């Protein structure tokens, strides 16, 4: 027993008591001892008279627990400011042996002495003895409690020190009563320093998002109920001893709870928290990664699939469902998957899947998916990988897929282009070989001819031979030149450089010229030419030179591909709105499947492989291009190989609609106005052609365009004085073209709408679009003439 425990127990007792050590030394005295023997303001020192050790051992031997009173003399020294006053007191003592103190005592026996001054009545001792006995057992009980309490406190201390959570305990005023090591470290305080401080001084926290200060302890003490971290997170600002150091912030997750007394009153708070900075950072990183992944998937259109093995119900994300045309509410299954696949791809896909799951190799396949609704087909590339249980059995089959239809389309397109290029290259090489052939053929007689001329001169032979040779050579030169001209024309047309010089021409004149040009070739082969051409003039708005070229090429073609002594028939017929010219031969004919190809350059080359006859495709290619440029068409008919061929050219003629047939320049008044530049625009070739013919016959310069866009383009370059334009046209209508032109120049050229729509509304709309006049088809020639005269020559004004 410690002296303080002794005092605690014995101070309330009225008898003076001492605590004596085994050696007889006085360890402590109670308050009653001081009151009886001490002096005011001084301290009393007591000593046992005689051999203290002997007294004590006597007690120890004799008195087991309660002893009898023994007369003893005590020497007392009372120490005051004046000095030490010795005193001797005769008294009876009784005492009790106390158990050695387990903590401090190292086995030292202690004796509690009760002093009874001689003068006091001995009768009190009995009662006192009983009281001491009770006291003794109470001391033992308290002692046990104390040990238990200390043990449990130790448990708590060790526990708090060792746990990872920070724990702070406050009293009802929010002062820190205890703080564990983890909490002290995180708040940056020394535990000893922190205890007793208001928690608000040690604990600095903010809402992670709003940065408003947080006070969970205060809240708990006010409300008496638990408070947890706001959803935005809590930021702990750590105390920084060195102001130079950067402020340290920790992400924490605190919760605070009240400590309640038995009566329910809040007597303190417990704050428990942990550092979640790392977790917070990880969560943030995970969120960012997820964000990026989502973006990547969205941007690339990649869909994901997660399948448990064996395959049954499948787990597909929204994109994969979309790829497989799975409607909302339908759960994808492996059956549905195979059902959606193109039947031709099912087996290969199944095999690839089984192989991957069996081998663990990557699954990578391209298959088609069909929309059951529309039948639409998309190409999909799917890549995946199986996962396995520890025992090696497959557990999952997960992967991605994406639409590769566009890639497939471009691949196919590239393949087509490559094939076309390679075909074009082959054709070009064949063409060059054939070109050499075609050039060498006329060169051979030229070279021989030169030698003949030399020999004939040397030997002075028949002059007729020389003349014949010279004529032959001339024809070869003409043939060579024509060949080269055709080549150049085809090249110019393909570059868009060939411009027709159209005017009013008579078809008879054109055909006469063509026959004249082709006659040598026809005669050479001994063919007969039959002409079925109407007597009356047939007027066309055309380029006479180019049209002559068209027909002479067709005649030459017929002559070439017809064995000597054949028959060629040239027929011209005047249809309702077009003129047809056909050239029929009795030659080798053309197989049905080759009939369209003959107009493509190079393709006649193939004929040589048929054991037939070769020539360049230039002539017919040129024919088609020139006829197209005239707004016409050319077709070939043949009953097959060996049955002869018939080429028919249709060219828009002068339609009756425009009344041009009843109008001729001889009607006079042509020269009544200066020559104007006129642009005729109509998507109907016949209408354009007839109107252009009429304008040309009036003595004006004419150009033709076939829709609004072309009209705008031609107008910029040609700078017409007057534009006669149809309203309803493809690509760009007359209204749009007029608006466009008026936007560029509000007054010129003179815009005349020539339209089949006569309604007042159309007229108003035309005027609104920028037209100056509106004529209804068929336009009266006199009206056309009058309006053209209204157009001011732009070039003159500009000059």
């Amino acid at each position, binding site marked *: 027993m410690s002296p303080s425990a002794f005092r605690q127990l014995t101070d309330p007792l009225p008898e003076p008591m001492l605590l004596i050590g085994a050696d007889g030394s006085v360890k402590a005295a109670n308050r009653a001892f001081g009151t009886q023997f001490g002096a005011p303001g001084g301290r009393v020192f007591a000593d046992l008279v005689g051999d203290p050790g002997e007294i004590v051992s006597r007690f120890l031997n004799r008195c087991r627990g309660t002893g009898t009173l023994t007369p003893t003399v005590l020497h007392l020294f009372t120490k005051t400011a004046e000095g030490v006053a010795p005193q001797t007191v005769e008294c009876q003592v009784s005492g009790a042996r106390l158990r050695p103190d387990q903590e401090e005592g190292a086995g030292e026996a202690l004796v509690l002495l009760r002093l009874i001054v001689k003068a006091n009545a001995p009768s009190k001792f009995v009662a006192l003895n009983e009281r001491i006995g009770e006291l003794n057992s109470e001391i033992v009980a308290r002692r046990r409690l104390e040990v238990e309490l200390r043990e449990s406190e130790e448990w708590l201390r060790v526990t708090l020190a060792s746990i990872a959570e920070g724990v702070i305990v406050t009293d009802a005023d929010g002062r820190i009563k205890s703080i564990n090591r983890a909490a002290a470290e995180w708040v940056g305080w020394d535990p000893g320093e922190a205890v007793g401080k208001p928690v608000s001084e040690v604990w600095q926290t903010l809402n992670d998002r709003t940065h408003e200060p947080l006070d969970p302890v205060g809240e708990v003490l006010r409300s008496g109920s638990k408070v947890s971290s706001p959803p935005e997170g809590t930021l702990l600002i750590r105390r920084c001893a060195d102001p130079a150091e950067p402020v340290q912030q920790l992400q924490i997750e605190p919760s605070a709870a009240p400590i309640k007394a038995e009566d329910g009153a809040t007597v303190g708070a417990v704050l428990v928290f942990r550092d979640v900075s790392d977790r917070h950072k990880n969560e943030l990183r995970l969120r960012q990664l997820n964000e990026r992944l989502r973006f990547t998937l969205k941007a690339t259109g990649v869909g994901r699939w997660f399948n448990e093995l064996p395959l049954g119900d499948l787990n597909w994300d929204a994109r994969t469902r979309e790829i497989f045309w799975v409607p909302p509410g339908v759960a994808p299954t492996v059956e549905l998957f195979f059902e959606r696949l193109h039947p031709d791809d099912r087996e290969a896909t199944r095999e690839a899947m089984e192989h991957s799951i069996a081998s663990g190799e990557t699954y990578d396949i391209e298959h088609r998916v069909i929309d059951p609704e529309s039948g639409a087909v998309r190409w999909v590339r799917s890549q995946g990988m199986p996962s396995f249980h520890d025992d090696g059995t497959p557990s999952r089959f997960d992967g991605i897929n994406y639409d590769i239809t566009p890639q497939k389309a471009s691949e196919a397109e590239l393949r087509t282009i490559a094939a076309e290029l390679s075909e074009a290259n082959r054709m070009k090489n064949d063409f060059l070989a054939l070109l050499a052939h075609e050039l060498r*053929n006329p060169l*051979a007689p030229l070279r021989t001819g030169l030698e003949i001329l030399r*020999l004939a001169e040397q030997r002075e032979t028949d002059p007729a031979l020389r003349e014949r040779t010279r004529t032959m050579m001339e024809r070869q030169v003409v043939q060579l030149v024509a060949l080269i001209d055709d080549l150049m024309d085809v090249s110019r047309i393909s570059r868009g450089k060939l411009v027709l010089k159209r005017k009013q021409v008579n078809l008879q004149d054109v055909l006469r010229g063509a026959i004249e040009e082709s006659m040598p070739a026809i005669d050479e082969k001994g063919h007969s030419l039959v002409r079925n051409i109407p007597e009356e003039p047939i007027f066309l708005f055309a380029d006479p030179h180019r049209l002559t070229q068209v027909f002479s090429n067709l005649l030459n073609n017929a002559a070439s591909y017809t064995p000597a002594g054949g028959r060629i028939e040239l027929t011209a017929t005047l249809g309702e709105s077009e003129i047809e010219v056909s050239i029929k031969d009795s030659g080798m004919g053309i197989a049905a499947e080759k009939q369209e190809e003959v107009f493509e350059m190079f393709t006649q080359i193939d004929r040589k492989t048929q054991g037939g006859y070769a020539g360049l495709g230039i002539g017919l290619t040129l024919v088609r291009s020139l006829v197209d440029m005239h707004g016409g068409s050319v077709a070939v008919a043949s009953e097959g190989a060996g049955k002869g061929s018939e080429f028919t050219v249709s060219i828009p003629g002068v339609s009756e609609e425009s009344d041009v047939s009843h109008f001729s320049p001889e009607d006079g008044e042509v020269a009544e106005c200066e020559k104007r530049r006129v642009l005729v625009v109509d998507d109907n070739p016949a209408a354009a052609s007839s109107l252009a013919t009429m304008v040309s016959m009036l003595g004006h310069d004419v150009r033709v365009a076939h829709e609004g866009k072309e009209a705008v383009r031609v107008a910029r370059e040609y700078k017409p004085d007057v534009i006669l334009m149809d309203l309803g046209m493809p690509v760009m209508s007359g209204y749009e073209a007029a608006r466009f032109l008026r936007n560029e120049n509000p007054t010129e050229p003179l815009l005349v709408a020539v339209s089949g729509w006569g309604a007042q509304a159309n007229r108003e709309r035309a005027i609104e679009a920028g037209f100056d006049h509106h004529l209804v088809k068929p336009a009266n020639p006199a009206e056309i003439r009058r309006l053209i005269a209204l157009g001011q020559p732009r070039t003159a004004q500009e000059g």
Partner: protein
Amino acid sequence: MALPRVLIVDDSIASRESLAVFFELEGYEVRTAQDGVEGVEAVAGFKPDVVFMDIHMPELDGHAAAEQIRASPDGDIPKLIALTGFSGEEVGNRAEQSGFDLVMCKPVSPDKLRETLAGLFPGNGGSSLS
């Protein structure tokens, strides 16, 4: 001794006639034919010593005509010379397969023609006239 007989087969009248005149002036006996069919007939009837034949002709082309001439059971087979506007190794191989002895590319120079004939018929015709 008779001069070698020359047959010219070509669908181009200018080529055919100019060569014919040339060879006549050179002193050969010349016949012409305007396609393969006529050419094969002329070989049988005229019995030429040498045939100059165009390849690309209507009715029967040079290759087919040469094959037919080679396959003919009767008498001596004339020297077959292909004359063509095409050039290149393939053309030569193809002509050789058909049975031509020689391929010449148009336009052939008169001197080359003389040399060739002189080579085929040493001591005869052209060489003495040149």
